[in-house]
């Protein structure tokens, strides 16, 4: 999957839990949960949404690796075997 495809999956999942937010405005290095006011319940729903779209289950032990948009893109890209996510 391309980086744009992963990004789209992230944005689609975010819109499900924070419909009033505009994920396009997220800065790459911004803390996702703080920026969009996502609590642990909605964060889990977000990950469930990503799992449904990408087929990847993110273990709790990896949560510290996916705190920002750029980190999440990098993490998912590696898990999907896509390598670099330059420009994220």
């Amino acid at each position: 999957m391309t980086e744009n495809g992963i990004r789209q999956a992230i944005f689609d999942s975010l819109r499900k839990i924070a419909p009033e937010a505009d994920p396009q405005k997220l800065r790459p290095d911004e803390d996702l949960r703080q920026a969009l006011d996502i609590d642990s319940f909605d964060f889990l729903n977000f990950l469930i949404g990503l799992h449904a779209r990408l087929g990847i289950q993110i273990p709790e032990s990896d949560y510290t690796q996916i705190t920002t948009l750029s980190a999440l893109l990098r993490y998912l890209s590696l898990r999907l075997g896509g390598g670099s996510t330059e420009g994220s």
Partner: protein
Amino acid sequence: MPQQLKKWSDLMGEFRMPSLGADMTEGTLVQWNVKPGDSVRRGDIIAIVGTEKADIEVEVYETGVIETLIAKPGDKLPVGTPLAVIQVEGGAVVIVPPSEQAPPTPAARVRASPMARKMAQELGVDLKKIQGTGPQGVIEKRDVELAAQTQVRAVPTSAEAPTPSKPIEGMRHAIAMAMARSNREIPHYYLSIQIDMSKALHWLDQFNQQRSIENRILPVALLLKAVARGLVQVPELNGYWIDDQLKPSPEVHLGVAISLRHGGLMIPAIHAAHQKSVEALMEALRDVITRARSGRLRGSEITEGTITVTNLGDLGVETVYGVIYPPQVALVGFGKIVERPWADHGMLGVRPVLTATLAADHRATDGHRGAQFMETIRHLLEEPESL
């Protein structure tokens, strides 16, 4: 012919505008889910009522057949107003629609409890202007309290009182009323305790590794379980303060504070939490959060919480000093789990530590019982296999 109620049997079949919170004085019928002739069973959702906070699905407490729909969608009516007539199994009741009712004669005796009369006299509230929400429409103490609050709201107490720059939104107003009442009436006391969460988090980690992401359990489910178990040990914290006495509830209905994305909060109850496993509590929590945030809560969930639990750990808060939601008598708050230095058997280490607080009504309990409750919670969370 009697103007208000013509009863054909001892079975009551009135469906009235429910009180969906300590702060609610009126509601708007949003829609009917039934029509005359429909059969209904106790627990069926037959209407949606709009409150200041949200639209709530309202259940019926009778089993029978809908006879008449009195109120129309869009009608804004005081709590206790008849909305429909239900022909109950084995009998029927006819309620004359409000528009056809004759106004009470001046000589008519207002039906009110002794406590309500006493309070009305003290607060200068006219009982004739109140719609009672008790059995048969009897005015109760809380009806007078609500009326007094409305009076205070309607009459400026000072010419110098600041004018709000914009109308208070419904949700904020409802919360304001309930919390102001709490601060005014409830003598709070607070206790806090620090809990070593290492074993609980380890247990949870092992548990979640064996489950799919859809069935993952969040730490808050453990906290709810511990609270429910603790309330079985200390039941005085689980119930209501009504008519100057504690009325403990035999069931633990955990009210969970849920923030809404557009602001404000709802506190739906997870019913019979003391009988639920951790997995069942997580499932129930998932259900009420989803429905709270999509405006599909039920009336019984709004009104039947016997204690409130609030978890602000997601926002980085370490200690929560809550305000009790009347007429409940306690609120349990949880903060963020943070790593802290922790001495144990003479050894210093770093542990994930949770601060739990109890806000309790000193009329109902003393600090001693509150401390026993907190100690029970601590023990359960530090020995999670006992949950």
